[in-house]
């Protein structure tokens, strides 16, 4: 890895400069991660008196546990739904804003601020809007003949958390799509217009393919967001219910370990999650490298 062509001499200074970050990292990141790894191989009895080494048994149980398998598929649906909804909305808005000249900045300002809203707050907002007794949306849906109730219907609950999570993420995707669109040379689009492509065709044959690096990058980021940063959305609204319908992996780690006090299982779940994060990070790094190199 690079440094400057010329560097400062110094025997202890670089270590002193690194010390604060390294110490915090070791104490609050590396050590707990190692603990999770270690605990995932142990089982505690009900009173926390005895611990026994059980090898990979926690993992075996995990993948045999229908609740955990359910959480896996719930997470997949949630991540996919959030990513698709948020990215398609953002792309539509970004493409439209990009056509504007004078009003571009005004629209951008109006669209980006939800980034500042905490996932938990986003959850509460939509929870309120969809509130079955006083919410405005269930009232409208009822007029259309649909009885909304996310307290009893798993599908309704899933729709609610996806909407809340996607809403907050639109701003982020919008900004990256807009930046991606602005980096496409105008001359290419003009060339396509001279070649007789209609606006719609121009978008699908020129703009969209050129946007694919941004799209891919955002897909990874959105999946990471939906899997790990949306704890607040779930916890502040459905709390995994009704009957496990919105119990995503991150929420389950918390519920099993912190509320249910099942340390071995929670640690094993942590390890699985870490593996997923690391895999996604590697994909992302690969992608960054490729983008830098072409």
């Amino acid at each position: 890895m690079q440094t400057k062509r010329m560097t400062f001499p110094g025997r202890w200074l670089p270590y002193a400069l690194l010390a604060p970050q390294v110490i915090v990292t070791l104490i609050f990141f590396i050590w707990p991660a190692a603990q999770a790894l270690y605990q995932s191989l142990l089982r505690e009895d009900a009173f926390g008196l005895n611990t026994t080494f059980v090898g990979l048994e926690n993992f075996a149980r995990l993948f045999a546990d229908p609740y955990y398998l359910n959480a896996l598929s719930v997470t997949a649906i949630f991540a996919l739904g959030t990513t698709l909804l948020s990215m398609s909305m953002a792309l539509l808005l970004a493409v439209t804003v990009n056509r504007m000249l004078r009003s571009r900045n005004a629209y951008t300002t109006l669209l980006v601020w939800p980034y500042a809203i905490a996932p938990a707050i986003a959850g509460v907002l939509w929870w309120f809007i969809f509130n079955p007794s006083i919410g405005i949306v269930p009232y409208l849906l009822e007029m259309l003949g649909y009885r909304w109730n996310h307290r009893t219907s798993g599908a309704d609950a899933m729709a609610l958390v996806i909407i809340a999570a996607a809403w907050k993420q639109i701003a982020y995707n919008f900004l990256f799509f807009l930046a991606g669109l602005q980096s496409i040379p105008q001359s290419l689009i003009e060339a396509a217009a001279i070649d007789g492509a209609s606006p719609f065709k121009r978008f699908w044959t020129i703009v969209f393919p050129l946007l694919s690096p941004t799209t891919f990058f955002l897909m990874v980021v959105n999946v990471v967001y939906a899997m790990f940063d949306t704890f607040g959305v779930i916890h502040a609204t459905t709390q995994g219910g009704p009957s496990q319908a919105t119990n995503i992996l991150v929420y389950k780690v918390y519920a099993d370990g912190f509320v249910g006090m099942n340390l071995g299982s929670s640690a094993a779940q942590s390890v699985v999650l870490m593996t997923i994060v690391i895999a996604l990070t590697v994909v992302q790094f690969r992608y960054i490298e490729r983008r830098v190199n072409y």
Partner: protein
Amino acid sequence: MVEHRPWSHLVAHLILIAGVALVLFPVYIAIVASTQGPGEFLRGTLPLVPGGHALENYRAMWESGLSRAGAPPAGQMLVNSLVMALAITVGKLSISLLSAFAIVYFRFPFRLFFFWVIFVTLMLPVEVRIIPTFQVVADLGMLNSFAGLSIPLIASATATFLFRQFFMTVPEELLEAARVDGAGPLKFFKDILLPLSVTNIAALFVIMFIYGWNQYLWPLLITTDPDYYTIVMGIQRMTTAADGDPQWHLVMAAVVMAALPPVLVILFMQRLFVKGLTETEK
């Protein structure tokens, strides 16, 4: 721009207005709800125009909170949030600047090793290792303290990475000129590198502040003393109670107060925010 038909322009505006409306809708509802009296919510549906109880609702939340739900006054929670967000932001920026400086401007044994130790944190969000991190903080006696709220979150590979990237683009000759001019490492850092990093620091400040303000799971885990509740997690306590005993007008007043500071930061520092966001992720 290629071809501009008036009707397509109109359609574009309509799409954008619909998009903006969709984005604004939940917040509008929250603001409207926060201005209603306590009786409004018993009548079935929510009114769509503001009521006349704004002042009393916000004052009630600010001063006394929702005691039945175990939530302290919003004023105090906002201060707690501010302290936590600032501590996380300043902490992250300081330790990241120092470590990026060490990694870029020095050669020393185990440099690569330290680099990776720091960068592993990119891969391990707190959400995936909740229990063991909680145990460490508990063992250190940092539960219910601002130190416990902020220090475990200040290690940031993102900021270190960004500063490293930025330092790499600072022309080599500036360092060389400074050395010919007799500046040592710390002098160079203070006189040259920090002033040059001001825009990057400000951009990251915006992002980190929002990150810090919006922390949810971590305060939820390590604070049991209402004196340390932050506004974002405090609201959750209120909603749980509000479902049974609808105090939505007060909860929504708290929601507006919780969302306002980071939203204002983005609105007033949009340029820095966009820079910070797009550059931290590249």
